[in-house]
């Protein structure tokens, strides 16, 4: 005879669909069974079985490495890999590399920043090295240095001096760097040439080659000194295809090309950006070779929206509104398929990274019991 206590019987009953008791005697004064109601049983027809809708894709996004370690001919402690995915969603096989965030750093004080950002960065903005250090401390995998002072209409900093700035930043931090130009089409190629030479082998991302400048010079410099190039167009898929092709024809290897179709701020063109990124990703995976490159987005553009920075009581405090505006811009391009994002506000970066980690299934967090929300909110 086996003796079992009542608790054990009850716990077995909870798990079982059917329980058969044979030759048992129960000694108890009263015995109550509270059986749960039977769960959903099909009433009619065949049960439709759930199957994940997995697609086969013809294409694959090139994997691009930013930064190089000592062993690889650079001096970075860690490198960043972008892209490499062969499907649209995780359930189809996963994205190879997690999207990354790069803090923006400038080579001069940015008096034009919105107040919310000035308050955060002004203490370090006289020194790009210090600015970079603070950015890395606040937690991004890489940073962008915008050599904005090289613009002939701003400070006209000579290329040689800009290269020195980059050398200083390379000394100050050990993460991979993205190099932003000033946007002046005559000057940028000259600046990139000098920077590329000074940082030989560091696998920088030169940002950017555009249709309206001498992109061949940038490609040549990138090839000669082993760097990557950002192919930047303004919200136009045909232009993106054309520029990617030009750069490739000029000798830039596919795995050294990152693309940026321009990020419009939330409320100011983000809808175009959203659909263009979705189309870029889908066309690439469906086999368009010339678009099979990771996508980097200038999420910082979110701050161009007046709703992000303007002191307007009717819209609530801008200290909260600004970072949230940037976060939601980031989340939007991320969902469309961005592989990397340039950003500016630490809180927006933190929130975005949390979403990235959650979306890639890496974040372990205390989970809620959703069923209880009616009583627990």
């Amino acid at each position, binding site marked *: 005879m086996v003796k079992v206590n009542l608790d054990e019987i009850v716990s077995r009953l909870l798990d079982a669909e059917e329980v058969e008791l044979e030759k048992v005697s129960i000694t108890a004064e009263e015995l109550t069974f509270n059986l749960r109601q039977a769960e*959903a049983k099909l009433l009619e027809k065949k049960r439709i079985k759930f199957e994940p809708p997995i697609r086969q894709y013809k294409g694959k996004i090139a994997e691009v490495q930013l930064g190089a370690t000592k062993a690889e001919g650079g001096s970075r402690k860690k490198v960043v890999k972008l892209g490499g995915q062969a499907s649209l969603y*995780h359930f189809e096989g996963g994205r190879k590399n997690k999207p990354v965030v790069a803090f923006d750093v400038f080579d001069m004080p940015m008096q034009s920043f919105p107040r919310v950002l000035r308050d955060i960065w002004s203490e370090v903005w006289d020194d790009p090295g210090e600015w970079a250090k603070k950015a890395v401390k606040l937690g991004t995998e890489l940073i962008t240095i915008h050599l904005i002072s090289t613009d002939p209409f701003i400070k006209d900093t000579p290329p040689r001096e800009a290269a020195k700035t980059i050398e200083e930043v390379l000394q100050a931090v050990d993460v991979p760097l993205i190099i932003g130009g000033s946007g002046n089409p005559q000057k940028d190629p000259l600046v990139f040439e000098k920077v590329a030479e000074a940082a030989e082998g560091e696998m920088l991302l030169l940002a950017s080659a555009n249709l309206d400048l001498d992109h061949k010079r940038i490609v040549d410099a990138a090839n000669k000194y082993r760097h990557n190039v950002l192919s930047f167009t303004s919200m136009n898929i045909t232009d993106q295809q054309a520029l990617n092709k030009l750069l490739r024809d000029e000798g830039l290897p596919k795995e050294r090309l990152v693309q940026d179709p321009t990020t419009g701020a939330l409320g100011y063109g983000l809808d175009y950006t959203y659909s263009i990124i979705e189309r870029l990703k889908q066309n690439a995976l469906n086999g368009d070779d010339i678009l099979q490159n990771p996508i980097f987005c200038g999420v910082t553009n979110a701050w161009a929206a007046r709703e992000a920075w303007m002191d307007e009581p009717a819209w609530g405090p801008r200290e909260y509104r600004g970072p*949230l505006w940037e976060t939601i811009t980031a989340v939007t391009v991320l969902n469309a398929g961005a592989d990397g994002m340039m950003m500016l506000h630490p809180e927006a970066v933190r929130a975005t990274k949390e979403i990235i980690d959650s979306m890639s299934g890496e974040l372990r967090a205390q989970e809620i019991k959703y069923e209880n929300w009616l009583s627990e909110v």
Partner: protein
Amino acid sequence: MAKISPLQIYRLLPGTNCRECGETTCMAFASALIERKKIYEDCTQLKEKKYAEQREKLIELTTPPIKEVVIGAGEKTAAIGGEEVMYRHELTYFNPTAFFLDVHDEMSEKELNERLERIKKFNVTRIGQKLSLNGIAVRSKSNDAAKFGEAVLNVVEKCNLPLVICSLNPELLEVGLEIAAKKRPLIYAATKEKWNEVAKLALKYSCPVVASSPGDMQVLIDLVQNLLGKGIRDIVLDIGSYPKGEKFYEMTENLAMLRRLAIENEVKVLGFPILGVPCVIWMDEKEPVKGAMAEATFAAVQMLRFCDMLILHSLDIWALLPLLTLRQNIYSDPRVPVSVQAGLNTIGKPDENSPLLFTSNFALTYYTVAGDLESSKISCYVLVVDTGGLAVEASMAGSKLTAEGIKRALEETKASEKVKHKKLIIPGRAARISGEIEDATGWEVMVGPVDSSKIGAYLKEKWR
């Protein structure tokens, strides 16, 4: 998407080119049907008996893969779903995600009334569009029938917005439905435990119902099959809302699978709108600013992952504004041209001494600038330069906005005949090319503010 061609539809039409629908040919009507600019009822001949079979086929063919569910009755309703495509660039999205705000039965009458007032009065206008909240979700927090009934009654009396009646207890649901049935609320929710009782309520009160299966896709399918089997047609899907961690990951994947199965794989049992509940953030976040930020971010993710309605908690304008703006963006019609016509426009009643400004022909830039100028009450000329439909900064980067282009625009519009002076106010964002503009045009350039919200103050100070 039901990838239908106009030809497939054309074959089912009378083919008489009668023009009664307003289109010149049946083929044109077929295209209009696909773009949802017309509905099948617009074809008068199709109503004739001899076309009955074709008509049925046509309805089948043109019914969107995501059923449209209407919550509410009478003056204010919320239509959700009705989508044809998975990605907006494939056509357009139709019904913007509906935002429902939660209230519960443990609020005092005063609290409840105040909250209802705030929800009703909430109103922001952005680029000419009113952005508003769409409904109220009344939930039973107390699990007490009397309290819940009172709360529902209060909401029904004070507010004409569409409702969701929320409880997992069918008895409580019935209390709420008895009061609110006339408003055709959405019932939350039929679960695997109590779906049968809830299905009876949905039929008795003819209301749409949420099928809720947190984290389990197979159970969700089973539930919907059961509800359909009972004859329920208006269903909303709930796969659970998880703001963080591994379950968040599962949720985002499940949401993508749900929509792909429904639209691309044509699994009809999943062809229903999806509910997201971002307010679950507040289950373990009590700090108001952090919570509102997290809720808005989570809501954005759910909206981008195809959720057709959301239940939200925070009423902070700074948190709702970005969310409403995102909805405005994502649900804008990508087929509508994004640019306005280039040329010389007037604000107010300008004369030969009035200022002349230029801006891009990107619709959003133009309407923003025009709105700011109008509210400044200063009469002026606005030269709309063809920038290829791009904003000022983007168009300069892509060389779509150049000094030469501005010169051409000045000449083509004969601007110098409209004003006596030769001063051109340019956007602050075009300051970089101010010298080039002066050289090319021979006009004196005045660099205006970077953001046009400052244009009124700028003109008052600088223009005389």
